[in-house]
């Protein structure tokens, strides 16, 4: 078996007395989509926030290309080409699309000043690929629709040559057409060899998009299965009962 692109091994974190993530291990191969499933509060978002540098783990290790890495901040995660699209999109509503896309990684002129013209030009290029209808570059993102805001968040993750992409509920706020667009994008990025962690509540969608799914409950990993080996009902019972029917059988 080849080396995973990314591996999280025996990760734990607790807030006060509550173990939000308890000894969980997941991994993703290049060109693979791994789904994270579970109820609200199962620990999925907390687990990926450790990966994106928003939370610091209490125990466990993270490996990129088989090499152990330390991720203590969002900047660390970015340095390992790990990009995240948050459920809340994490946009500054008062800034325009280009400012959000390059937030924390601005293009600067030779005098060290931010180069808005260059950033807008780059934003137009990437948007032409992701969402050709997007034209509202000079408005604050507050005035954009849910789908347009999502495009900005996705563009931000994709623009900087992500190798590992974390998508937390990327289609939760979207209409049918836009959801299909995100699904196409995921397939395209997968074909480019990215490793993708996908979080969603929609089991059907997960069965379509993912190669493997990992199910969590109460901070613990119930199991990881290849989608072709399980039925949607198997997954649901893992989510609800916290038991893996295949292992029980």
């Amino acid at each position, binding site marked *: 078996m080849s080396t995973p692109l990314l591996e999280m091994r025996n990760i734990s974190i607790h807030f006060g007395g509550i173990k939000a993530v308890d000894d969980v291990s997941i991994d993703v191969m290049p060109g693979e989509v791994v789904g994270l499933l579970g109820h609200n509060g199962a620990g999925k978002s907390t687990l990926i926030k450790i990966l*994106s*540098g*928003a939370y610091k783990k209490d125990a466990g290790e993270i490996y990129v290309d088989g090499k152990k890495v330390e991720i203590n*901040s*969002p*900047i660390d995660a*970015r340095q390992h080409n790990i990009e*995240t699209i*948050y459920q*809340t*999109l*994490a*946009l*500054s*509503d*008062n*800034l325009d699309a280009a*400012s*959000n896309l390059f*937030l*924390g990684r*601005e293009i*600067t002129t030779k005098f*060290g*000043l*931010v180069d808005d*013209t*260059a950033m*807008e*030009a780059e934003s137009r290029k990437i948007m032409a690929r992701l969402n050709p209808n997007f034209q509202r570059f000079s408005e*604050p993102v*507050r*005035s954009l629709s849910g789908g347009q805001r999502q495009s900005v968040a996705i563009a931000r993750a994709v623009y900087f040559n992500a190798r590992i992409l974390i998508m937390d509920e990327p289609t939760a706020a979207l209409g049918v057409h836009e959801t299909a667009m995100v699904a196409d994008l995921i397939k395209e990025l997968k074909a480019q060899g990215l490793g993708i962690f996908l979080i969603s509540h929609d089991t059907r969608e997960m069965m379509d998009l993912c190669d493997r799914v990992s199910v969590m409950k109460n901070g613990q990993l119930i199991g990881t299965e290849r989608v072709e080996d399980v039925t949607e009902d198997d997954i649901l019972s893992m989510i609800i009962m916290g038991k893996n029917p295949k292992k029980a059988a």
Partner: protein
Amino acid sequence: MSGGLGNLIKTLQIDTRLLGMIGAFIVISLVFHVATGGTFLTPRNLFTLTLQTASVAVMATGMVFVIVTRNIDLSIGSLLGIVGMLMGVIQVQILPDIVGFGSPSIWIITVTIGILLGAAIGAFQGWLIGYLVIPSFIVTLGGLLIWRGGAWWVSKGTTISPLDPNFVMLGGASGTIGVTASWALAIVGSILTVLFLINTRRKHVSHNFAVKPLWAEYALGAILVSAICGITAVMNAYLVPTRILERRFAAEGLEMPEGYTEAYGFPISVLIVLFVTIAMTIVAKKTRFGRYIFAMGGNPDAAELSGINTRMLTVKVFALMGALTAIAAVIASARLGSAGSSLGELDELRVIAAAVIGGTALAGGVGTIYGAILGALIMQALVSGMGMVGVDSPLQNMIVGGVLIIAVWIDIIYRRKTGDA
């Protein structure tokens, strides 16, 4: 906006809020001009008005950053007091013994120490807010009491005067650059403005972005250049009173020639405001620091997740506020020629009012430097005008308070209408 005027404003891409504020300033000026029987809109009064506005205007630019990051700074009036007082002690009681009385290095050393001190105190308050997560309202409310008490303690309640003659030039009518230099400055400013417009257009064209029609660029350039020249003409129209000129000639043992006149030109303090305004606008619009301030104000979590150290950013914003307060302390104490322990009292409220009237939203994320400057000017025009008309000072305060509330209410309606929440 509808019809031809609305389209014109749109084509010129002028901020309607800016127009509204300039309109308000003009209306206030005209009303007082009539009410005072024609003394408000005179070069002399406008010159005085800019002098009186300078110190609040400098601080208001910093307050924009503070409020944009969803904080507040109530300590600046007291900070101005203690920094002004310490600068007074340094230049009057300490430095003359070391570098010699009247040495030109006195004002330089004094101002440098003052700015460092202001920045250090600001940074300390910012650290309490950013790292110890004490609300800025509380930290700076404490600061308001502590630094005012400190100013009293340093001076034992006395007033330090006279201040160093070079230092005093930074604050008022005794420090102006004269007619020729003022015009030279206006010409340089006009050229830079035009170059800036050309450069912006060229950049947009090279990236195939939409640009204004050429006539609109010319119109905008013409408006800006006439504004620069108009203000300069006003400053150059205020003549130095004859008896001050006579005294100056007499001091040099000369006879004043018959019919000799001289105008003031730009006061140094107003040039400081100009410099601070331009510098702070560049910081706000064109630096990462400024970009992060607005990002943090718009969504602190998003800023944090983008790798921005919002705690350190808070420290820097308050340090900058402190440094600007120290500059305001220089202007305020130099204008009076003395440092009293009540210097800057209630300035925090004037500064916050100026920033808010200038369109800075207390919810964070929104605000402009030029708005704060105009806000400061509008406030001062109201106060001076009422003083000239003979409105009692308690009534003045009541009116200013009312205007503040109404201005914010209008702003809320404006934002709702433009969807500019």
